């Protein structure tokens, strides 16, 4: 039989996908065929068939091509190094001076690409990327937040930490040290008769700070937040009070449970990593667990979280609801990002308001749209607004006021 006909017949016995796959691999598709193949490829229902085809390629491949030895050596080096870095961060259980330990792959890509991205969650991508006139926002370079905080000592005196040099801070009987954006309380020899003294660390809008408590627990404080804590944990419990948002890496101590009290709710932990978001404007308290286990209690309700879960206490319902949550999104602030997966404009704007210390005013109907994407928290406000404008939300900036139109 003529080979052309043979091919035709076998092509007819193949599925369309297999035919396109083969022409893609052999690089002899027409443009139309390639597009069709890409369409089929991105459909999840074809997963099994594509995987079967891939298996066939692997089975039938010898070693016709080889990569340069130098490239191979550097790949091998990369692998061993990446893995070493990972092992160190897992074994190093003391959360002490490890900054930003878990930067998600997505964040890494973001760094690679160097700047902020935004994409619209609009399925109809043709519409989404149609030419949009950029009415460049006149947010005359309002700068992002940074490491700002105020420490209030037991006697009520306030220390603005931005203006303090690194090193020891005089704070009554406790030993306090400032190390960049981290405030360290050293554990002093337990004097049981000494009265318990409380300090408060407060971040203004546009501020963030880190705190190392005397038991070795570490707290990351987001903007417009505060933590009220004893300078030594002397009793049988460790109690702190939080407003706003904080991420906790609690040092293990089974004898002394750690309690975070938030606006009538309590999170009880033994040693674990979790985030509490209790910004008043969001109408609920969200506790998200990364590692370990925590129990959350309100007056009427309680719940236990497993890693990857979020407990939401709605202030009105006063009921705790436990659900799965995207920890990358929850932890984005700590990793230097705004990240939204289907958030409404009000959620986005209140986060912007806290970080850039601006007021938000809505003129007319609030646009009912959902957004997804990531932006670096290092971006200037004008850049962030520009990205949002690309998604067809219009702004006007008047001094420190942003008007959403």
């Amino acid at each position, binding site marked *: 039989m003529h080979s052309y006909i043979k091919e035709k017949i076998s092509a007819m016995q193949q599925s369309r996908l297999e035919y396109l796959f083969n022409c893609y691999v052999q690089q002899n598709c027409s443009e139309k065929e390639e597009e069709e193949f890409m369409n089929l490829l991105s459909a999840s229902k074809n997963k099994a068939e594509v995987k079967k085809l891939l298996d066939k390629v*692997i089975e039938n491949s*010898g070693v016709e091509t080889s990569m340069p030895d130098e490239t191979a050596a550097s790949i091998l080096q990369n692998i061993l190094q990446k893995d070493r870095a990972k092992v160190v961060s897992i074994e190093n259980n003391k959360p002490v001076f490890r900054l930003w330990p878990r930067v998600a792959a997505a964040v890494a890509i973001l760094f690679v*690409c*160097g700047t902020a*991205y935004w*994409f619209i969650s609009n399925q109809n991508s043709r519409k989404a990327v149609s030419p949009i*006139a950029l009415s460049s926002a006149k947010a005359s370079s309002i700068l992002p937040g940074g490491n700002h905080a105020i420490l209030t000592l037991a006697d009520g005196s306030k220390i603005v930490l931005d203006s303090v040099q690194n090193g020891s801070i005089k704070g009554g009987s406790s030993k306090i040290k400032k190390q960049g954006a981290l405030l360290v309380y050293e554990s002093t020899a337990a004097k049981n008769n000494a009265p318990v003294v409380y300090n408060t660390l407060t971040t203004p809008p546009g501020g963030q700070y880190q705190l190392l408590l005397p038991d070795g627990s570490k707290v990351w404080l987001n903007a417009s937040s505060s933590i009220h804590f004893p300078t030594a944990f002397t009793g049988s419990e460790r109690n702190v009070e939080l407003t706003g948002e904080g991420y906790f890496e609690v040092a293990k101590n089974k004898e002394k449970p750690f309690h975070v009290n938030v606006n009538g709710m309590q999170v009880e932990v033994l040693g674990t990593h979790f985030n509490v978001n209790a910004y008043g404007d969001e109408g609920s308290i969200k506790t998200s667990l990364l590692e370990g286990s925590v129990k959350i209690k309100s007056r009427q309700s309680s719940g236990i979280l497993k890693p990857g879960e979020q407990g939401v206490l709605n202030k009105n319902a006063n009921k705790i609801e436990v659900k799965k949550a995207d920890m990358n999104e929850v932890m984005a602030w700590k990793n230097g990002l705004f990240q939204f997966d289907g958030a409404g404009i009000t959620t986005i704007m209140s986060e912007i308001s806290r970080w850039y210390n601006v007021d938000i005013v809505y003129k007319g109907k609030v646009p009912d749209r959902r957004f997804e994407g990531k932006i670096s928290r290092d971006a200037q406000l004008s850049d962030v607004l520009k990205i949002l404008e690309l998604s067809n939300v219009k702004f006007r900036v008047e001094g420190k006021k942003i008007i959403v139109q």
Partner: protein
Amino acid sequence: MISQGDEQAFATVFDYYRNKIYGVALKLTHSTTVAEEIVEDVFLKIWTRRAMLNEIENFSAYLFTIARNETYKILKQIAKNYKIVLLSENNQSLVHNNTEDYLIHKEITSLLQKAIERLPHQQKQVYKLMKEEDLKRGEVAEILHLQPETVKFHLAQAMKNIRTYCMLHLNTLIGFTLLLSALF
């Protein structure tokens, strides 16, 4: 031995299988840069999960399954963004209106730079001379002592590499459109 963390043993296995995986990845992505990434992803998985190797009876089957899944993941990512590429090619005007926009400009430059840095040596030379220095194919051939046909081939490979690399790593619709229109 690998399961106990023996790097030497791992290196031996890596050298034994790397070209096969690379060949498969190259066949499926037509990009050396992305094929290298697949090789790295596959072996990184093997190495980080080495504790599991004790329970694996057929190592090569295990390796090939991982390779197949990684390749699938990457192909799907490329496919997802393929439409956007086509779109951008039909939508040239978008670029010229907005190229001055600072933010987008910054984004394009840094991703392109990253993609160019990862090109194999000769492709990089050819690409830089032709695209950045604006030299003619003949001139580049002379400078590099290559046949003009070879220069053409290297440039095509470089463009393919950059394009696929960007498809894989850039996640924004807007960024994509602009980047790719800037390329073509």
